[in-house]
């Protein structure tokens, strides 16, 4: 036996989540598919005017990323709760906070990271400048982990409740507003010829606060749910 399960708990959960996502490709690709379709609809609906598209681009991409993250997060702990895995995880003696961090990291890898990679492509569709595209990708790189962490907390708080999917969205969306404001603000600033430094710093600070504060809260919510 290994001396302690804790060091391997993060890795075991992370690898398992990626493996499960590979086995459930349709489910895993759904948020990305939603993002692609939703973002692509705006130029068709708003019209091809480049100036208008440039103005709405950061907001559209960020809101679609937020909604895509919410699509997949509601069932983050649902199946583990239903099949007894969550009980076993809480009995490992490992840190529940570490466990919550592993799940949020896996969620970000599967939904947030592809959005960061795809964002420049969609930025081109909205006629964003190369500088704005870089900042857009950077804001998503800093912001999507915040969405995964907040979503993880929402999923834990609503575990076992009826209408959990809707409740998660109602809980998380207001909490995600600062990330949305600073994320879109950074791109808009660059587009207006200003520095995005302040927005990025605030977004970074928000990520640090969320990364430090949300996993323990998620862990507490999970323990309460299992009781």
């Amino acid at each position, binding site marked *: *036996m*290994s*001396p*302690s*399960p804790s060091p*391997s*708990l993060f890795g*075991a*959960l992370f690898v*398992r989540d990626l*493996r*499960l996502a590979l*086995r*459930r490709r349709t489910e895993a690709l759904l948020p990305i598919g939603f993002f692609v379709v939703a973002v692509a609809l705006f130029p068709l609906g708003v019209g091809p005017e480049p100036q208008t598209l440039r103005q709405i681009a950061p907001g559209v991409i960020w809101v679609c990323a937020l909604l895509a993250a919410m699509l997949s997060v509601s069932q983050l702990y649902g*199946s583990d709760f*239903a*099949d*007894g*895995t969550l*009980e*076993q*995880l*809480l*009995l*490992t*003696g*490992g840190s529940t906070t570490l466990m919550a961090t592993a799940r949020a990291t896996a969620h970000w890898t599967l939904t947030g990271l592809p959005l960061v990679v795809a964002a420049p492509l969609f930025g081109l569709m909205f006629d964003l400048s190369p500088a704005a595209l870089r900042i857009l990708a950077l804001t998503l790189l800093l912001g999507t982990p915040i969405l995964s962490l907040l979503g993880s907390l929402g999923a834990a708080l609503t575990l076992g409740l009826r209408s959990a999917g809707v409740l998660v969205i109602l809980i998380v969306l207001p909490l995600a507003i600062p990330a949305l404001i600073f994320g879109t603000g950074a791109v808009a600033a660059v587009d207006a010829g200003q520095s995005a430094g302040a927005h990025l710093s605030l977004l970074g600070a928000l990520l640090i606060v969320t990364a430090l504060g949300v996993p323990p809260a998620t862990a507490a919510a999970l323990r309460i749910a*299992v*009781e």
Partner: protein
Amino acid sequence: MLSAPSSFNLSEPHLAARGLACRRGSRLLFSKVDLALCPSELVWLRGRNGRGKTSLLRLLAGIATPEAGQVLLDGSPIAAAHERSRRMVYLGHQHALKDDLTSAEALEFLLRIHGRRSDRSSVAAALDHWGMLAQADTWVRRLSQGQRRRVALARLVGEQDASLWLLDEPFDALDADGVERLNALLLQHLQRGGAVLMTGHQAALAPALQARELDLDDCAA
């Protein structure tokens, strides 16, 4: 009130519970439950449906917090017990197996998170013990209930310590061969000084296990 017969060594129980009470919603399921589980002892927990057998197991495992009372594992409060995962195995009514993993992957994950040997050969040996090696690469979703139970119980095969096993309906869905294999595992565990508390059908338990019976109906609140 549940209490151990005087022939047991109550001074050094593996697991001890004092004055346990459990509430589900506004209903008090049971109260004033005392029990002591000594090394090499198997206790069969009985009670009518809905009496709280699974709830009691969850309290004893430290998954849930009792309304009143205390659970001690080797003298320490269960929630704070040092290396609880190593000194206790809890198998709940659900198998904790993921439908989209193979039998081997699902077992490897459970062994790994609990800090047990989870290399390929250990997993294969555990599955082989339960006659499930041929299904090692079969998706869990394609297994029957009995086969799923066998994969879940395969966690017990590699246990070498005289630990505490808390088993919720372990004989459920097992065929005669499975019952025989589980009885053999239980006997082996008791012989090395381990202790077992379980729910389920007493008829499936081998007489050689000398199970002690505890009736939760006596503790109805």
